[in-house]
């Protein structure tokens, strides 16, 4: 199965919408000194629903978009979310067969929190000061709480993005194996 042109267009629309919601709305909601993160949820949901390659690609795109809004090294989110999308698919594969109600939400929350931690660690490795500090705890809690609320929305959005189109396939992306089969 490949990712069709309509899927790419839907992905662009979802990433843009998520970025605007992040910058205009979610950034205003500060809890424990941090705000919820919609962009990491896109990578997590794509990995869970679409497999490792699609997860990584969506994570890379969402990360590049997210990096436009911050003044940290450009590409830091792209690198982190690529790994998040890829890793989410493997976690989903490991959890396959235990399809309990809400298990995908638990996965999204776990991956979002893990992704935020990974972002801080990679930032610290790149020499950015203050990336791993006591404030990180607040960020992990807030991103986790935000993922509980926004995770289902991200899953619905990514299911729509990755849905097969009726028309002919466009730009081909090798299928990385869906964890949600």
């Amino acid at each position: 199965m490949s990712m069709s042109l309509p899927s790419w267009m839907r992905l662009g629309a979802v990433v843009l919408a998520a970025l605007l919601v992040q910058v205009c709305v979610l950034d205003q909601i500060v809890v424990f000194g941090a705000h919820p993160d919609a962009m990491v949820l896109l990578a997590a949901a794509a990995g869970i629903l679409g497999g490792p390659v699609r997860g990584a690609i969506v994570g890379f795109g969402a990360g590049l978009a997210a990096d436009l809004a911050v003044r940290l090294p450009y590409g830091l989110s792209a690198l982190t979310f690529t790994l998040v999308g890829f890793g989410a698919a493997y976690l989903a594969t490991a959890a396959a067969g235990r399809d309990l109600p809400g298990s995908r939400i638990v996965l999204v929350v776990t991956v979002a929190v893990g992704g935020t931690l990974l972002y801080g660690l990679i930032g610290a490795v790149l020499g950015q000061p203050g990336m791993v500090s006591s404030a990180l705890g607040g960020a992990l809690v807030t991103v986790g709480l935000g993922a509980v609320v926004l995770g289902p929305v991200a899953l619905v959005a990514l299911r729509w993005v990755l849905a097969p189109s009726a028309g002919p396939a466009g730009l081909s992306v090798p299928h990385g194996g869906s964890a949600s089969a």
Partner: protein
Amino acid sequence: MAATRHTSQRISLLMLVLASVTIITLDYHGEASRAIGHVRDAFADAVSPLQRGVQAVLHPLGDIVSAPFHYGELQTENDQLRAEIGALSRELNSQSYASNLEREVQDLSNVPFAGNLPVLPAEVIAPATSNFQPTIEIELGSSGGVAVGMPVISDKGLIGSVTGVSGSTATVLLISDPRQMIEVADLAGDRFSLKGEGPGRPLQLSSFGATGRRPKVGTLLVTEGQINDEPASAYPAGLGVGTVVSSRSLPGGIVTGTVQPLADLGDLQIVGVVQWPPTA
């Protein structure tokens, strides 16, 4: 078959990771970094009207969502606020919100510690855009005379410096960020450096080498400005930064301690950009 698929997946991952690392590397160097900066500035310009509109409409929503998580803090604040209600209600009777805001802007323009330096008042349109960098976005950019490196104050004291400017907005890195290092002095002339320790935490104080005196609790620290032939300072002299909360002398005469910023960095609405030439 499965092995081939796994290899293909890993190659895809490797390519995306390499692409990300390349972009990060380019951002650290010269022309590409400037180009990325322009794209970021264009994005900031494009979203700022939307940000401003949504902020005006949804500002109370953020407070409502945040409130349950800060219950204890809010109770203490509530007690203080009750004590202020009388005074505020009298004030509200005589002045509208708009004129209060105007007065706040006027106060800012006449901040005594800013001396004769021109101060450009600006409204805060968004709090930090990253959970890893304490910043604010203000509704004044290069078209309004703002440049990277300019100090930013509230009516209480220094809050940070401009780190990014688009045509209509600017990003201010707050003094609580560990990237911020400020040279300060007390009234006795003893020099110290202050370093951010993250949002909501006091600044870290340390002396320049061995010093005989340690500042007392409550001592006001102000920016030191340029001294003789030393490299140009990032801040003009005399901007109030904070008061000493604790200090101690270490063996060898080194002094360390903590400093509480004068301004409430978590509640900024109107700030002033000091037109101080940024360091080269």
